[in-house]
């Protein structure tokens, strides 16, 4: 039964979750409050956390409600408030829709937000793109012919574009990223955290939040499988 959403309700809760996939072992329990950042040691489970691919076991709740208890419209509305950077070599997910240009891919989901016009959206996407290091704006090429660093930066833009943004799922977000853009990425993370967005950093290696300049709480240590 879903708990009523309050300020104390965790944005993301994993209860006895076991992810499917050969490289994912163990059971995860995790609660992520507003504005918090945590690390999850796993390999590309974003689609499972988002309720698209079935979990091996356990329950994922977002804003106090498991995916199974949501209607289609409610689920889609919640998913549009979650930004995701997908692992470039994840097991079950494409990072881009192949027959759309990168800029179309980035803006696609936001176009379905009734509160935003195409003009506003284009302006916001361009501003974000320039902030993270895409000086000429979002690439207008197909994913297959776009260089990997530009794809990584474009993924960042897509992840930060939802408004409001409840949750960010970052699967190895720095893999393939240009070093000079990392500071801008961290700045964006801090900006959205200050606005109340929670962040789950997912990777097999433990990220050094201190070295990156990310202000994590004292309990940010990797949520290792139990």
């Amino acid at each position, binding site marked *: 039964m879903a708990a009523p959403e309050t300020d104390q309700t965790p944005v993301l809760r994993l209860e006895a979750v076991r992810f499917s996939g050969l490289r994912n072992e163990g059971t995860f329990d995790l609660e992520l409050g507003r504005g918090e950042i945590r690390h999850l040691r796993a390999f590309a489970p*974003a*689609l499972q956390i*988002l309720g*698209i*691919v*079935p979990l091996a076991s356990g329950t994922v709740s977002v804003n106090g409600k498991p995916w199974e208890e949501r209607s*289609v419209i409610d*689920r*889609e*509305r*919640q*998913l*549009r*408030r*979650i930004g*995701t950077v*997908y692992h470039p070599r994840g097991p*079950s*997910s*494409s*990072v*881009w*829709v*192949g*027959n759309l240009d990168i800029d*179309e891919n980035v803006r*696609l*989901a936001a*176009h*379905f937000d*009734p509160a935003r016009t*195409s003009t506003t959206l284009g302006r916001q996407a361009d501003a974000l793109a320039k902030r993270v290091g895409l000086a000429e704006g979002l690439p207008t090429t197909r994913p297959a012919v776009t260089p990997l660093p530009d794809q990584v930066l474009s993924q960042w833009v897509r992840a930060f574009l939802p408004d409001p943004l409840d949750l960010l799922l970052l699967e190895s977000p720095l893999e393939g990223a240009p070093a000079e853009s990392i500071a801008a990425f961290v700045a964006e993370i801090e900006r959205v955290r200050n606005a109340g967005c929670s962040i789950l950093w997912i990777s097999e290696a433990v990220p050094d939040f201190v070295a990156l300049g990310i202000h994590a709480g004292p309990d940010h240590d990797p949520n290792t499988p139990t």
Partner: protein
Amino acid sequence: MKGGKNEKDVAVELGDPGRFRLHGWDAAFDFFTLATECAVSALLPRSWRKPVRTRLAKQILFAGVEAVPFTVFAGILMGIVLTLNSYRWLEFTGRIDFLGPALSILVIREAAPAFACVILVAASASAMTTELATMRVSGEIGLLESQGINLVQFLAMPRAVGLAIAGTCLALIFVACAFVTAAVTILLIGRMSPGPFFDSIFSSIVPADFISLLGRGTVPAFLIGVICCHVGVNTTGSSTAVPQAVTRAMLLSVAATLVISALFALIAYL
């Protein structure tokens, strides 16, 4: 639109002999739900977000505009064939004054909507199913779902509506080409002038003909779009499942066209 694999999907991948059938009542119910959802969604202005409008425009371009040359070609050839055959038999029976009405029945009621749908199935159904099935097996459908994008609204509805518009337009183009060719053919034979010929056609057309032409151009084309989306998005397994999905979608599309044609004939003329 479900992505899960069940026993029937596995049977399809393994080449079960029943693979050309719509799999049972569950799949039939799923299909009719999708068709209804597409139709309702098309009527809601808020469904027509920018990517949906873009997809619709592309669909009309691919399925309609690019098929115009072949439709003109088919219309001209069918105009010649039908005119010569009808002329010969009506002259033999001494009722050459029935040439216009006979051609209007053959072209408007039968040939135009049937050819429009055949052209759509041949040119667009396979491409659409391949595209969506490939998107499913490569994980792109999951990517869209994970971003909260409604698959019916973004993938199915603009394709089905685009095919419906294209199907209707192609049927009308076919009619125009067939009648102009028929007039030229009659002129060349030298037994009847085009004026009286067209007069006899227009005087023989009844409202049921318009209903039949538009209905049989629009409804089967819409259903072809829904079938291709349904089969394509529900493809499971690896890329080897894609060709089987395409074959299934094309056969189901032809079957839907025939069933709808029969239903319209019953409704319009009985």
